[in-house]
């Protein structure tokens, strides 16, 4: 039962990663690409980590995985913001 649930979570995570990657390749400009990549990948990683944590059934490993997710969330949100701001500054020429 737990195995099935964790497989579903991991597959859902992989789906979001796939969607994010397709978005990165297919969307027209930098902002929409950033949007697709960070949002989809953060959700994908969250689902992936939830699936792996469920599979491990070990509280310490779950906590470590949660920490990894939080660190990636903060880092990816910040880097997306920095990239977008730099691009905006170059556009407006200020």
């Amino acid at each position: 039962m737990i195995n099935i649930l964790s497989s579903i979570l991991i597959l859902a995570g992989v789906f979001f990663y796939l969607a994010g990657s397709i978005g990165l390749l297919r969307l027209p400009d930098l902002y929409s690409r950033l949007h697709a990549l960070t949002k989809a990948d953060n959700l994908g990683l969250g689902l992936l980590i939830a699936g792996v944590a469920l599979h491990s059934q070990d509280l310490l490993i779950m906590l470590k995985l949660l920490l990894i997710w939080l660190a990636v969330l903060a880092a990816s949100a910040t880097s997306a913001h920095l990239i977008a701001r730099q691009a905006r500054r170059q556009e407006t020429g200020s």
Partner: protein
Amino acid sequence: MNTASLLVFDGLLLLSIVGLAWASLATTDVRRSVILFMAFGLVLAVAWGRLLAPDVALAEAAIGAGLSGALLLAAALRQPRPLPPESTPPPRNHGTAGVGVVLRWAVTLLCTALAGTLAWALLHVFSSTPHDMLPGAISANLAASGVSNPVTALLLNFRAYDTLLELAVLLTAVLGIFTLGQANPGYQPAGPVFDGLVRWLVPVLILTAGYLLWVGAHAPGGAFQAGAMLAAAGVVLRLAGQSRIGLPQGFMLRLVMAAGVGLFLLVGFTLLILGRPFLGYPPAWAGTLILMIETAAMLSIATTLVLAFLGGRPEATGVKAAANRQCEQIPRC
């Protein structure tokens, strides 16, 4: 997990390693090449993990992908960006182009011959000697090494001489960096979002470094991985526009730079005077000595890596230096 799906995973891993290496070498844009190199390092770290070598995986991810990537990117940013393709001048006459082609093929041929020779030598070694000799020797003597992680036992005890020489190489590198003169003044101060990240990321990085140093005695970790974490904290501070980037100044900086080699030599010669072989720790003291040497080595490694990222002597920011700078601005001072 069954073997067939693992085989597919390994195949994909190998393909992406070779593909990323090729892409990184084939692109003409230096920055793109560096980014691809970082991706290559991360996938390589996964491969080391698959080979059940978590120590090497950690080092590859932290130093190979992370810090080398940052160093290469910092170096690439100093290069002028290549002109877009439409504005590049047409190729010169065919004579030099022909020489270029011949040269490229000669280099390719030489590299292939070298790779073939290395592969042959590796195969020869693997087939002629029993390759479980070293692990056997280490596990037989692990109890006397002072640590329970065989990799740390090898690096800091059985082959401590090699690690001492590695640290000496790093010290030589940092002396070379110092001869490049003063580092660039750095980046503009970070905005509120990045600053918010830096405020909690840097303490977490320092904590992780301490953890990796301590855990190295009985699990994957150690001075090199911990030093890379500390250096990452320095790189983040530098990118966020902090001028001090956590480095001490003047004499203290030189002391920290030389601490790894210095403490190693001090311990080695003290043991020599006490009638033991050079770096032959007495088993009762081995654990403590290794932790002390690793702590000093971590500080030296981190300082070296941060100074390499700076690409020069750090700017002095003390009271005296500030007074000097003001003097430069006021002619009659």
